[in-house]
């Protein structure tokens, strides 16, 4: 069968009844557009998560202690135990710092900074986390040991409270005056509530602010990404030795967190895409319906073609190509619409989150969406095409 002629005929008949063609393709257009939008937004989210993990440090291991194990209140882990662990396994662990989220009110002059996060950490934090000091110095062993009222502030606070000149000034933390000894480099975009709206004090001070003597959260850094899994095992063994119960603590590597997030994202996307795919199915049925109508309308044409020597497969091929063309054009329109919608939605989300968020479809997604829409046309076009191919030429010729 001549493909080009069938293809041209298909385009012609689509052009002669544009409204009908559009309505026929609508299901496919919506389905493909929905799939493209979902995948694009998913990709944007993925990129954003990746970059955030990258910022956090991919070697990071978080340790959280939730209880004590049984009723033995004597069991406890001190920061010194953790330091000892790092000293014992230098090939896997490169550092550790307590990490205490302090419940504290930050005040400077008459201004309250409610959004500011106050963390307690040790002098090692600069080696473990991703904070870098821009000016002044970070906390030191002596500050931690003596519970000195000193703090290192993020770039937001420096700008907002001290007009960029905070070094040596005083800031109130839950009523106590703290001296600013260091200012961190900008990490995000120096806005309120961002990564730069933070303040670090010695963890000993932070624990006191929280009214406890225990540190329940640590950040370790593994020597590199590959050592993280082994490092995790080492930490877990140590904790199990003390607590005798693996339920009271949690050790999570950054890679695991990323994996968990990715798995969640993928599951969500699969569900959404599956829902969108229902529209593709409906679109396919729409095409089948219109093709059945078209076969009836063109019974006479089929008769003529058969009388001139068209075989069954010629007629079948013609109608399948027509259905495939219809759905392929629908697919292309859907891809175009989907990409436009994704760009628009990405822009809106980017504005809302104040971060670089770009929704972009992958070439694979576009290719698969196109392939699936053509496939649906061929699949649902087969039945009408087969019906057409089996028409009796005499009856078909006499049909009006």
């Amino acid at each position: 069968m001549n493909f080009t002629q069938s293809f041209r005929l298909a385009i012609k008949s689509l052009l002669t009844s544009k409204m009908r063609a559009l309505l026929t393709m609508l299901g496919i257009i919506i389905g493909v557009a929905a799939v493209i939008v979902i995948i694009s937004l998913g990709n944007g989210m993925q990129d954003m998560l990746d970059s955030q993990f990258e910022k956090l440090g991919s070697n990071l291991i978080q340790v959280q202690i939730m209880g004590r194990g049984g009723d033995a209140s004597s069991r406890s882990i001190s920061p010194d135990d953790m330091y000892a662990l790092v000293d014992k396994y230098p090939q896997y662990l490169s550092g550790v710092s307590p990490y205490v989220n302090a419940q504290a009110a930050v005040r400077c002059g008459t201004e309250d900074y409610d959004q500011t996060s106050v963390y307690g950490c040790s002098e090692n934090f600069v080696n473990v986390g991703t904070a870098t000091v821009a000016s002044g110095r970070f906390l030191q062993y002596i500050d931690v040991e003596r519970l000195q009222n000193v703090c290192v502030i993020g770039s937001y606070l420096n700008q907002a409270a001290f007009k960029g000149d905070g070094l040596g000034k005083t800031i109130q933390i839950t009523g106590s005056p703290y001296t600013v000894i260091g200012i961190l480099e900008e990490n995000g975009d120096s806005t309120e509530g961002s990564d730069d709206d933070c303040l670090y004090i010695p963890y000993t001070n932070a624990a006191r602010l929280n009214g406890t003597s225990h540190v329940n959260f640590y950040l370790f850094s593994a020597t590199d990404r590959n050592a993280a899994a082994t490092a995790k095992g080492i930490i877990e063994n140590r904790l199990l030795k003390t607590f005798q119960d693996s339920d009271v603590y949690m050790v999570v590597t950054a890679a695991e967190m990323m994996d968990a997030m990715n798995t969640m994202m993928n599951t969500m996307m699969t569900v959404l895409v599956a829902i969108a795919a229902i529209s593709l199915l409906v679109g396919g049925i729409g095409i089948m319906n219109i093709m059945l109508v078209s076969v009836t309308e063109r019974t006479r044409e089929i008769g003529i073609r058969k009388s001139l020597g068209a075989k069954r497969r010629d007629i079948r091929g013609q109608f399948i190509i027509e259905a495939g063309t219809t759905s392929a054009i629908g697919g292309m329109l859907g891809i175009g619409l989907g990409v436009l919608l994704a760009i628009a939605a990405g822009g809106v989300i980017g504005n809302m989150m104040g971060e670089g968020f770009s929704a972009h479809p992958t070439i694979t997604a576009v290719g698969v969406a196109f392939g699936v829409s053509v496939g649906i046309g061929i699949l649902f076009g087969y039945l009408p095409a087969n019906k057409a191919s089996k028409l009796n030429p005499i009856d078909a010729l006499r049909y009006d």
Partner: protein
Amino acid sequence: MGHLIELKDLYKIYQMGDSEVRALDGVSLTIDRGEFVAIVGQSGSGKSTAMNIIGCLDVPTSGSYHLNGIDVSTMDDDQQAEIRNKMLGFIFQQYNLIPKLNVLENVELPLLYAGLPNADRRDAAMEALHRVGLADKYKHLPSQLSGGQQQRVSIARALAGAPSVILADEPTGALDSRTGREVLGFLQKLNHEGNTVVLITHDNSIAVKAQRIVRLQDGHIIYDGDSSDPAAVVQPNEDAEDTDVGFGDQEEKAVMP
């Protein structure tokens, strides 16, 4: 070489509820190369059934049909399609051009199904259009042509594949008498050029343009001979209309010239 068309003891029986209708009731007929034969009959005489079988659009209930020495009476759908494509050229009362295709594409259709490459197809189609004098209109759509021109396009289409037999089913039925005569003249010209033409009609005045007349009634051949013989145009009993077989009644729509 044997006969071009050889029908032997052909029966076509339709089951209509309880009754049996014999559209062809033992027809034997031979047509040789280069003949111009008119198959004539009233409505219900069985001539349309005969035309369908000769045109390989239908198979007989029993009997044999050899075309060019090939037994085509027991072929399946696709085999018949191939025979139609290679050996037969149809001219219909309603022209049966495809409205969405232009004149050239319409004429190319049988060649397309024959699997000819693009360039050959175009050349053969243009040549056929030259023969009917419509080469300059090859880009027109059928709807832009007059009835007579459309019928000439359909003649070109029938010629394009160089068939063994040209089968014309009431070719003048939808035309006024002047264009009808033109078309008939054209068929005669084709016959003079050596083509075998089989004309199916209900109209004696058209049938006499052929050399030979085969008259059918109630599924039987009641006359077969030269068209110049006065007996050829004797209308049988007019009551024949009442025994309406009900099949192949295209001629009922025919406009009498």
